[in-house]
């Protein structure tokens, strides 16, 4: 669905994005992770046709984003990080405006307002909405054209846990229906839970790209937490023969109360690759 080849964006001497390549399959949820300034926003801007690449190629649904932007625009949409809504218009007016722009069915705004549970507040001006309601309206707006590829830029930032959970469930549901989802996030658990594959971006380059489980297995330290009969807790490395010997000894002596295996987290992988946490 999304094909990126040797994508470069240069501002003067600075390489904001430095030759990244990847593909995202139809219906896949793809996460792009990285520090602030790593190049995530620039990448998403180029993927959505809002910034011209210095070199390289981006195709969405087979159309070159630079050459055939008018063909790409109806197929994509984006949930922005900021609640960039028209605050003096009502929720319904906001959606109706974008429905007109995309030339979609006039009933679509109300369907989406119902989907994001905003039908009761549809005729209130957006400036009276809470941040959670705004975020839900942003999602509804991004779905107005029933996009084949949906981009989400930090979609759950600032949301309370319940709203964030609802949004994640909504995104997962979209993917189940075949929508391709491309998201950037700072929340590793979110990426771990939602994404089929993630890419770590550092200084404009992709340093790792794979399914979260594979990355954790490849880069994470395989450990186990052991609670001993003397209530002492020990962490042992499963790859370390010395630790394995210690565990065997505790088992033989009957000192082990509980044993929990622990796989690495995406956070660990990121620290391993990028040198510091997100």
């Amino acid at each position, binding site marked *: 669905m999304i094909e990126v080849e040797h994508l470069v964006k240069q501002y003067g001497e600075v390489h904001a994005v430095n030759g990244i390549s990847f593909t995202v399959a139809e219906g896949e949820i793809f996460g792009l992770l990285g520090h602030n300034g790593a190049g995530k926003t620039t990448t998403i801007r180029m993927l959505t*046709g*809002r910034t011209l690449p210095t070199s390289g190629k981006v195709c969405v649904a087979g159309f070159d984003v630079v050459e055939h932007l008018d063909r790409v625009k109806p197929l994509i*949409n984006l949930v922005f990080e*900021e609640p960039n809504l028209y605050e003096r218009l009502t929720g319904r007016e906001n959606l109706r405006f974008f429905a*007109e*722009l995309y030339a979609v069915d006039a009933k679509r705004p109300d369907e989406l307002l119902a989907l994001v549970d905003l039908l009761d507040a549809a005729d209130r001006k957006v400036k009276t909405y809470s941040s959670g309601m705004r975020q839900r309206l942003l999602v509804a707006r991004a779905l107005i054209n029933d996009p084949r590829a949906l981009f989400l830029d930090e979609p759950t930032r600032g949301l309370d846990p319940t709203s964030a959970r609802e949004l994640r469930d909504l995104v997962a549901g979209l993917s189940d229906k075949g929508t391709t989802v491309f998201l950037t996030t700072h929340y590793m658990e979110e990426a771990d839970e939602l994404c089929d594959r993630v890419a770590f971006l550092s200084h404009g380059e992709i340093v790792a790209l794979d399914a979260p489980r594979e990355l954790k297995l490849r880069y994470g330290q395989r450990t186990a937490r052991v609670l001993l009969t003397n209530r002492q807790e020990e962490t042992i490395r499963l790859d370390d023969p010395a630790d394995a010997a210690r565990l065997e000894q505790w088992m033989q002596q009957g000192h082990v109360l509980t044993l929990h295996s622990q796989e690495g987290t995406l956070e660990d992988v990121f620290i391993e690759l990028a040198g510091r946490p997100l």
Partner: protein
Amino acid sequence: MHPRMIQSIFKKDLKDAIRDSRVLVAILVPLGIGILYNFIFNDTTPAPSATIAWHADGSTRLLDTLQGIAGDSVKLTVDQQPSADAVRSTMTDKDADIGIIVPANFDVQIAQGGMPQLTVLLPETSTFAGNYVAAAIDPAIRSMAGQRDPAQIAISRVASDTSSDSIFDRIGLRRYFVLFAVILEIGMIAMLAVPIILTEEVEKRTMEALVLVASYVDIVIAKALVGIAYIVVASVLLLSVTRVVPERIVLFVLAALALGITMIGFGLLLGGLFRSANQLNTWGGVVLLPVIAPAFIVGLPIPGWLETICDFLPTSQGARVMIDSTANQSYFGQTWLSFVVIIAWALAAYTLLVYRLARRTE
């Protein structure tokens, strides 16, 4: 360019902007100023008026004769009093310009050469109209007495050379200041309201959502059309309320549109220079002043070098055509040159705008 999207953005902006108090103020202030000027100023100097506190014992032709002499020169208002004392009291209270007390059988006595006593009361500081009436009493009485005029006076009106008349003589103070308000309206919509709409889109990042579906060109055209729509509605409203009808209405409309489109171009450029709509709202007036000031000095006695500068400015040229189209005769002339100057500035503004928009996606 996508006409359907332009139409959608245009409709949204019309609805959204009118709910913005900053835009509303930019539109309503010149409208209010124009209506205020309409009440303050007159196109022609009104004839002076005199109030006569009047009492006559019996009937007399004196009042009719005085009104005949005054004609259109002085408008007479007669305040009939029940007695001579009431006339005096009215004069003491300064409620009349002149008091006249006519004795009984006045007309008969005049006709018989009886020299009746007519009492005329003037305040300590008399008005022009009061003095005029007082001076007219003598010829009125002579006429009533049947005395022949010593000479025949022939009055005829002579067409004068109007080339040296000021703008105010040509179109009248009221119409000049209503035009002032129309140009101010164009300026405030183009250089404040439209840039506020654009800057707010960038500031609130709604522009980002718009360009996901529309192009920058669509967005800018829609904003320009919103400005033109507001200019048309506000100008028509202002001219209707003040009942100022330009003599050459097509020329007036063309000049107002050309000036509006040009200034909107610069307004849209201005919008790109400010980070926030509030910042623009605060400082936009400072930018507006030098842009719009040349419109208000054309035709006034200004130094030659300033006149030359005005020759090259769109606002002064727009004002010249609008004044010419409001008057029944051309005051400035060279209408074509005015349009050339305005169109040249429009081309410059929109070329710069296209250049700026092209850079936004790089």
